[in-house]
């Protein structure tokens, strides 16, 4: 495998163009914190490292937008925004050495607890510059938060795992960083009570910033975090709602570590982690399915994204456990995230997709990367 470390957009374009002339396969590499996600595929011929594409191209604090290069670490960007009382409302786990880069996060569409209020990466990106397989530099979207000119390719590229082009720059919309945050917590060993608690909060007029669930060893909690001018009043109100659904409640002002656990728990060094997409009314089912397997669950109780961590076990057993969970929760799309390579080799990490959707996805791939050079084989349907 050969490597490039472009320092400019033009160098990135040249690297891709020359690879395409040689028919060499290419993948972008940020900090590598999620490089194993997706289907197992042989190493590409060329790797484009984004570590020198790490500038803040623009930070328009008064307009609350920023143009960030792909190799910039999210943590570094957040520090800069925080100095102005702002944030990029995206808080995925940052991985080793807080290394996660903008490019990696947007390519994988990773997210964290802030998803509840602010949406996912797709909802925060307002523009993007990409380099296509043939070296074409293309921009979509713009630098303003409202814009409907042209197709929304920034969303298409977000979560495309580098299979359509290399993300070089991302334009994001920013939000105010709340001065105060308070968390209400309600705990129980009854999955149904937890589901009811989460729904009581999400259906109330309280506007939570995050609404999460955590479950381990037969007991779990609903965590509702409130931010802003009346965070404490809202958290007290949420605690009352949680108490009404028979949860044991508490309110925490010093809540940062609770949420760090929620974020970091989305990753695992052993066992296998499944990410399930579901709805609010799926929560109890997911918790019960996890409990029977001594698995841990955390995720978004309101938005309906759950990470289920199956305990460490020999490969064959893990493969079986993944199949079992998928069979039991058949209607919930289920992606395998962190898992030993041997496990990922034996299953379709993306799960089954409807035929018509795969057909259309393939056409999209074919038009953006006709020679199939970009990160071949890692994505849904073998793309």
């Amino acid at each position, binding site marked *: 495998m050969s490597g490039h470390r472009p320092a400019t957009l033009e160098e990135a374009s040249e690297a891709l163009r020359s690879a395409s002339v040689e028919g060499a396969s290419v993948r972008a590499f940020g900090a590598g914190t999620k490089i194993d996600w997706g289907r197992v595929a042989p190493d590409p011929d060329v790797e484009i490292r984004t570590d020198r594409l790490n500038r803040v191209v623009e930070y328009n604090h008064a307009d609350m937008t920023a143009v960030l290069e792909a190799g910039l670490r999210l943590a570094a960007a957040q520090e800069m925004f925080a100095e102005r009382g702002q944030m990029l409302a995206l808080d995925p786990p940052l991985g080793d050495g807080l290394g996660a880069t903008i490019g990696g996060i947007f390519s994988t569409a990773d997210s964290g607890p802030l998803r509840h209020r602010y949406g996912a990466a797709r909802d925060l990106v307002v523009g993007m510059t990409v380099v296509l397989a043939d070296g074409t530099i293309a921009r979509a979207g713009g630098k303003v938060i409202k814009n409907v000119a042209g197709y929304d390719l920034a969303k298409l590229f977000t979560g495309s795992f580098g299979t359509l082009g290399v993300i070089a720059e991302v334009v994001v919309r920013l939000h105010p960083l709340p001065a105060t945050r308070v968390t209400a917590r309600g705990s129980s060993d009854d999955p149904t009570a937890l589901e009811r608690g989460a729904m009581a909060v999400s259906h109330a007029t309280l506007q939570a910033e995050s609404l999460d669930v955590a479950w381990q060893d037969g007991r779990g909690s609903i965590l509702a975090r409130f931010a802003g*001018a009346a965070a404490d009043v809202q958290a007290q109100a949420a605690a009352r709602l949680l108490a009404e659904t028979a949860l044991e409640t508490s309110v925490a002002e010093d809540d940062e570590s609770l949420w760090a656990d929620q974020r970091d728990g989305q990753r695992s060094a052993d066992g296998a982690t499944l990410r399930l997409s579901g709805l609010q009314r799926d929560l109890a089912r997911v918790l019960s399915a996890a409990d029977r397997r001594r698995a841990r669950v955390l995720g978004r109780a309101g938005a309906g994204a759950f990470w289920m961590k199956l305990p460490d076990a020999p490969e064959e057993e893990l493969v079986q456990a993944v199949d079992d969970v998928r069979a039991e929760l058949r209607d919930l799309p289920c992606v395998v995230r962190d898992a030993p390579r041997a496990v990922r080799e034996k299953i379709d990490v993306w799960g089954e997709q409807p035929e018509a959707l795969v057909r259309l996805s393939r056409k999209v791939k074919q038009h953006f990367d006709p020679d199939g050079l970009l990160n071949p084989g890692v994505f849904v349907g073998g793309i």
Partner: protein
Amino acid sequence: MDLVDELKTICSPERVVTRRHALQTYESDGLLQYRALPRAVALVDSAEEVRRVVRACYEAGVPWVARGSGTGLSGGALPVEEGIVIALSRLRKILEVDLDNQRIVVEPGVTNVDVSAAVGPGHFYPPDPSSQIVCSIGGNIAENSGGAHCFKYGFTTNYVTGLEVVLSDGDVVTLGGKEVDRPGYDLLGAFVGSEGTLGVATKITLRVVPVPEATRTLVAYYQTTDAAGQTVSDIVSEGIVPGAIEMMDNLTIRATDEATHAGYPLDAGAALIVELDGPESECAALFEQVEAICMRNGATGIRVAKDEAERALIWKARKAAFAAMGRISRNYYVQDGVIPRTKLPEVLRRIDDLSREYGMKVANVFHAGDGNLHPLVCYDDAQPGQAEKAEEFAGLIVQACVDAGGSLTGEHGIGVDKKRYMPDMFSEADLATFQRLRCAFDAAQLANPGKVMPTPRLCGEVPGPYRQHPLERAGVAERF
């Protein structure tokens, strides 16, 4: 069989419009400057009929345009001359209200307000275009419509979780679902805002949210739009996210007050409506802060809505802005540019200069939070050449927006009206990249051709010689 006969067997003869005077109803959308007569209009009754009509057009090689309520302001639903119009307004069923999961599933012809009505009183659907009483959800999806409450709550694209789409070859595909964050390409995100060029949405799943506990509304008056603009920047930089912030300039105030008698002072240079919504405790705390910011920026008066009736009156003036313009000008052209908020004074000065140069008045209304300007260029089409001149002027306004780092359109779309300006905002490479998406969805280019892109483009064969990739040889990756 002739295509029109086939449409008659698919729908039924009464639901296929072919008579000239009846076709005229469909010759324009909300932008009356453009007209074209289709060969026929199919008033479809079901998603299955949509699929069969689209398929029949595919086999006949005839282009078609989907039409919701026809309120679009960029000529998006303008028929293709001799093409087919697929009118969706009979598809008005609410298929499922799933409040537990905060979702609603509807047919595309359902109006925007009917969605909120179906999930009320506890929930609502936030994207609220001023045309919400008539415009269809399908049209909203195609345009990625916005509204007054989008600064805080987001746009259509942030609320659509699933779509059933009929592609131009008659294939039916489901993008997304009730759940969010599904694996695979975000084709749903790419479809929203694609202006009817990627297919017809026949079934739509939306996310809805609880109605806020409290709403507090005020309108502040200023001598200048600059002072009102600075107020917006200050509110936002203090970390306050109002439910809505809308601005009107003097000409708009005068026109709307005459129409609505809302009681805005006629000598005010600008009026700023600020609405906070959310939990009572939060609104109460922030409302005083907002009033203080208004005063600090030289507000000459502040009117706080005492009750729902007064709130409605304040909003009535804003919502009547387009319609009221008829009182001060025979004709007007609605522009829809976006700028970074901070460039407001600079761009308004440029519009002022142009207004003098062209000798035409401009009334300005803005979604101030997101920098979306709606300058209304006033003209009189009884005078020869005025309409063209107004259009040219409006074109210079959007160019000024793009030069200031903004966009050609915030919510009305490119359609036919603005396609010629696309090269001001996008390079040839950018446009060619858009075309790749278009070709993946609709290689035959039968779905609303002639919109969005500045010049016709072919899809042709996928470029590049066939080369077997090493992975493919190894059987690891497949080619398709």
